[in-house]
């Protein structure tokens, strides 16, 4: 339990650090944020004064940070002038969509990488091993940008898959089952792209971790006991390799978040990616910070999940 609470504190510290970091960037950005807003005729000067006071633009830096953190905690992530709405509700929907995409991709990647990696590690030097190693090398050299563009081209040319978006226009009128199918159809391409980007690295690491475990003496003694290959691999070797693999899972959350950012933009998936890009291009800084904080929250949750899994799977950590 101490382990988990330590990790939780660690995650919270990360959030705090990112908030300070973002705040500093906000402060350092050339030009007063509210200058931009002033140029926007949709916002009245009255509103502007209220906002200025609320954000403490007339007070010291520390007070401003405190106010900002206060509003963060209350759920008020600021105001987006390009969308003319508070940031939080905007982010909520987008964040949900990104979460859907990334969790699906993560599950798919691990479901494929684990058995493949184990299988390949079990027979080192065999044709499968060499094929997999060559294939992963090639795939690792292909940038996700290209993968996304090519698959999008395939979608455009063949019409087999939708060329973007999350749901079809008539989504609201469909029955539940058809809604699910529509969603899945739209999910397919982005998830495939993310999968192809993540799978090679995962497979390599799974293979490496398994190879190390398979070389250890206790596995050899299990062979001597006459257990079947499959049993040894999955009931004994894989759990022993759990520790580095779970850490890998924790790391893969960050890479997946980055990858999904790009893929969402290219495939027009309505997630945090396109929102963030628009916000940057429009200099809508509070929206940018909001998106970054949300992504950090995802990261912290993902890492904490990994730590919890580690706690469950590795008895050495439970011994205190």
């Amino acid at each position: 339990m101490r382990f988990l609470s330590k990790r939780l504190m660690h995650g919270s510290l990360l959030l705090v650090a990112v908030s300070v970091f973002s705040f500093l960037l906000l402060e350092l950005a050339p030009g007063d944020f509210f200058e931009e807003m002033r140029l926007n005729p949709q916002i009245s000067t009255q509103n502007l004064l209220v906002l200025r006071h609320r954000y403490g633009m007339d007070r010291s830096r520390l007070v401003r940070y405190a106010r900002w953190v206060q509003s963060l905690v209350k759920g008020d992530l600021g105001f987006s002038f390009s969308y003319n709405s508070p940031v939080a509700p905007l982010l909520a929907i987008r964040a949900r969509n990104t979460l859907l995409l990334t969790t699906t991709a993560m599950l798919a990647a691990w479901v494929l990488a684990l058995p493949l990696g184990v299988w390949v590690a079990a027979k080192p030097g065999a044709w499968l091993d060499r094929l997999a190693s060559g294939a992963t090398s090639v795939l690792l050299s292909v940038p996700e940008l290209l993968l996304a563009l090519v698959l999008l081209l395939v979608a455009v040319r063949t019409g087999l898959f939708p060329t973007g978006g999350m749901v079809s226009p008539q989504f609201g009128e469909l029955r539940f089952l058809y809604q699910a199918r529509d969603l899945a159809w739209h999910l397919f391409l982005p998830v495939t792209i993310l999968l192809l980007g993540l799978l090679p690295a995962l497979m390599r690491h799974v293979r490496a971790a398994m190879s190390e475990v398979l070389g250890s003496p206790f596995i050899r003694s299990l062979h001597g006991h006459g257990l079947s290959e499959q049993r040894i691999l999955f009931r004994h070797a894989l759990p022993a390799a759990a520790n580095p693999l779970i850490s890998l899972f924790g790391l893969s959350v960050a890479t997946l978040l980055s990858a999904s950012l790009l893929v969402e933009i290219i495939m027009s998936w309505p997630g945090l990616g396109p929102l963030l890009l628009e916000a940057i291009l429009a200099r809508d800084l509070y929206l940018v910070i909001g998106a970054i904080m949300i992504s950090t929250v995802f990261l912290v949750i993902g890492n904490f999940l990994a730590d919890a899994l580690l706690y469950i799977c590795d008895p050495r950590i439970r011994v205190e």
Partner: protein
Amino acid sequence: MVHERPGRDSPTDDLRSCRSLAGAPTVPLLQVCGLSQSYVQVHPISGKTFSVQALDGVDLTVRRGSTVALVGQSGSGKSTLARCLIGAEKPSSGEILFDGKDFLELSRAEHASICKKIQLIFQDSASAFNPRFTAAEIVEEPLQIHRLGCRAEQRERGLFLMEQVGLQREWSEKLALELSGGQRQRLAIARALALQPEVLILDEALSGSDLSIQAQIVNLLVELQDRHSLTYLLVTHDLALAGHLADEIAVMCHGRIVEQARTSDLFTNPKHAESRSLLAALPVVQTEFALLSL
């Protein structure tokens, strides 16, 4: 001379009686008084800390020109003591007197000059050398650090030292890893001699080698001791070796020196339980052989 510790007097009494030896007519070269050292260890996962007392009031006397063996089981604190003596670690309390002067109280410059006089030879000779250095560079390194002589002189002195320990000149361009275990130990001794030390501490230096190599190194050490009037402190767990080489043996247990006596006295009449158990652990043949060689 036998040191006895009938009971624990107050620490200052111990220190005073210890220091009084330093003022005796023949000043011992090295005198350790009341040295204590403790470590704080952190459990890698739970983060709990607990302290380990590595040295607990160590008193040791080493006379000039003699060979003192420090014996004890693993974990008795022998290596810690050795490291404190060469200045690699700072003990939490106590004194180390070299030629009557307290080591630990000296200024940096004086400390540096004293450091040269005490050298350590490691157990694992492979790790004692930078793998990228050639044998010549290894032996010359102390000279380079102190900028003694020009390049050519350093080279010449390096080769001379190598010859003294029985290494051929042609091997000076070989990498340290290319040499065999015995050759590496010789190289380590050559390097230690570069600055003309007075005390050589051999930290289990003979433990890793084959017996035949051990014998060669022992002979080399004896020869060098005669030639350069060196003082040896042999840290070992091998009582038989100590019996063969040393004039005095100090038995260490749980961070304290429980008995320090002349070798013959210790073997015939061990006073402390630890000494007795170490002697009992020796195969009978070896004990008698060691006794014969005294």
